[in-house]
């Protein structure tokens, strides 16, 4: 009987104890797996979302994030200039505001309001029903939440009162026609969003700033890549700030996202310590209860390394069994935790906190393997240094 078979029989001899050990490892292993997913999940998800919009550069007036800094003057001309660079496929100017859609209630529905300008470029939303807005026409697209709350549909007429940053007076409502229902990639689950052309947004905002935008979004040519496009745009417009998707994600990571990285690190350390403690205690107590048997095996000719291998294999079986079980448990737990965290206000619906990566699985397996080894060290020390004759004597006396 080899060491693994021997270890298996030793474990099933005490099924309650072995089962609890496996379950304990499964529980902490699930938490460990989830923390590994969380450590990079948000960053990966945000990066995917940014890339899915089809734009890989963002140009702003200052180093503030889009929508948080001053407007870019002469945005339309600058967008056209950027789109003519050889390394650029397309560019659009985007401006953010807010608006009250005067429907669905006495005060209306408060929404995010976007205005877009740019030729030959796809808009940063997907039309679900109806059609897209036409530049220069008082048309808006609205998202599903807005449509539900205002009971508007494609073709509906509606009045809009804009609320624009820097505006010093109350703005009059402006009439619009809903041209279509759209899906916006950065919408939160309960978010309300509407969009129109940049010109019509400026009109709704008082008509004074028709050529300004919060951000110019740029899609680079595939053959050139974002790095080349960044340097080309920076050379063309040195007074503006250019941010690639990777750099944007980097900034997110250094900012608010860092909390989740830290908590995942702390909880990873805690769960690993817990698992090591659990397995070490289980094995040590188990071995202490059968020292006589182990001494007898040594007396019968089992080598020191053989009995050490038996103990190590027990650790591997408990951690291995628990580790395997931890994966489906961890996956279920991740779904639940993700569901909780996605309720943070402002988090886009398509962003997830727990994202599966093969590297997380590899790290998980590596950490569990290390746990099996470390947890077995003390019990192995006991059996390796077991004084055979003294133990046999003690067993008789005891």
């Amino acid at each position, binding site marked *: *009987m080899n060491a693994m078979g021997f270890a298996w*029989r030793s474990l099933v001899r005490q099924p309650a104890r072995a089962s609890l050990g496996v379950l304990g490892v499964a529980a902490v292993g699930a938490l460990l797996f989830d923390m590994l997913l969380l450590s990079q999940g948000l960053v990966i998800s945000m990066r995917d979302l940014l890339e899915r919009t089809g734009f890989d550069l963002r140009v702003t007036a200052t180093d503030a994030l889009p929508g948080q800094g001053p407007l870019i003057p002469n945005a339309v001309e600058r967008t056209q200039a950027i789109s003519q660079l050889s390394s650029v496929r397309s560019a659009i100017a985007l401006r953010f505001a807010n608006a009250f859609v005067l429907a669905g209630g006495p005060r209306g529905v408060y929404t995010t309001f976007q205005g877009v300008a740019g030729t030959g470029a796809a808009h940063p939303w997907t039309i679900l029903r109806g059609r897209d807005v036409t530049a220069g026409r008082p048309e808006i697209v609205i998202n599903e939440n807005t449509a539900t709350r205002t009971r508007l549909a494609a073709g509906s007429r509606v009045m809009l009162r804009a609320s624009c940053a820097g505006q010093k007076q109350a703005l009059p409502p402006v009439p619009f026609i809903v041209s279509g229902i759209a899906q916006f990639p950065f919408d939160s689950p309960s978010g309300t969003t509407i969009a129109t052309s940049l010109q019509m947004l400026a009109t709704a905002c008082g008509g004074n700033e028709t050529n300004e935008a919060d951000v110019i979004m740029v899609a680079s040519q595939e053959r050139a890549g974002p790095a080349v496009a960044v340097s080309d745009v920076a050379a063309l417009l040195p007074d503006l700030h250019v941010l690639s998707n990777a750099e944007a994600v980097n900034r997110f990571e250094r900012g608010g996202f860092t909390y989740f990285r830290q908590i995942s690190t702390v909880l990873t350390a805690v769960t690993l310590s817990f698992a090591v403690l659990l397995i070490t205690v289980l094995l040590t107590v188990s071995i202490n209860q059968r020292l*006589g048997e182990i001494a007898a095996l040594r*007396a*019968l*000719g*089992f080598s020191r390394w053989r009995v050490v291998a038996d103990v190590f294999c027990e650790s591997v079986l408990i951690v291995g069994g628990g580790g395997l079980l931890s994966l489906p448990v961890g996956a279920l737990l991740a779904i639940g935790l993700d569901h909780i965290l996605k309720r943070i206000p402002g988090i886009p619906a398509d962003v997830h906190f727990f994202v599966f990566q093969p590297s997380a699985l590899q790290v998980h397996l590596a950490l569990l393997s290390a746990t099996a080894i470390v947890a077995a060290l003390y019990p192995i020390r006991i059996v390796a240094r077991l004084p055979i*004759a003294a133990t046999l004597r003690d067993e008789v006396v005891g």
Partner: protein
Amino acid sequence: MSTTNGHIVEARNISRIFPMPAGPVTAVADVSLEILPGDHIAIRGPSGCGKSTLLHMLGCVEAPTAGTLLFRGDDVTQLSDRQRSLLRLRQIGFVFQRFFLLPMLTAAENIELPQSEANVPKAERRQRTHELLEYVGLAARAAHRPSELSGGEMQRVAIARAVANKPGLLLADEPTGELDRATGEQIASLLDRVNADGTALVIVTHDPALAERSTKILSMRDGRIESESTSA
């Protein structure tokens, strides 16, 4: 290269001293003896006289503090732990007072275990195990675990396990210590049979009836062999 003059074990002035906080304790002092193939030796004496310690030294479980101990001509004290383990696995068998069968294995698996460790091929060890179970009269209990066996049956399995690798020497430490008289008698007869089949046997016991079955009786007191007698 070792030389042997036919002795299985040759002990010359071996001693075993245990360092204790209150002062060293001499468990075995200056003992010399020889074990030849086929010997049937009993070591008897009062509790604490060092008989088990002497047995452990003869079985290469414990090294002497002083003196020379040769096993088939090899100086045991010069062997590594691994070499001593191999020696015990292939050439020495142990029977304990408390049996020390592995409770999670069946009787057959307990007997197979040392053979498996000695890399005996599967078919061969299965055959040998079956033979040994027949030999000890427990062929029908092969699939039973120790918890399902009586004390005498467990000791018979232990004896079968001890001779599984056909050792030249069998050491038994109080083999009937936890058994009643009748069962002890059965075990004693089985051990006699093992000896008669060619295995040298050394038994530690304080049971006079068991000792009388040996051809040579060594009486120990205070770590020394006080007297040596042969039975008729």
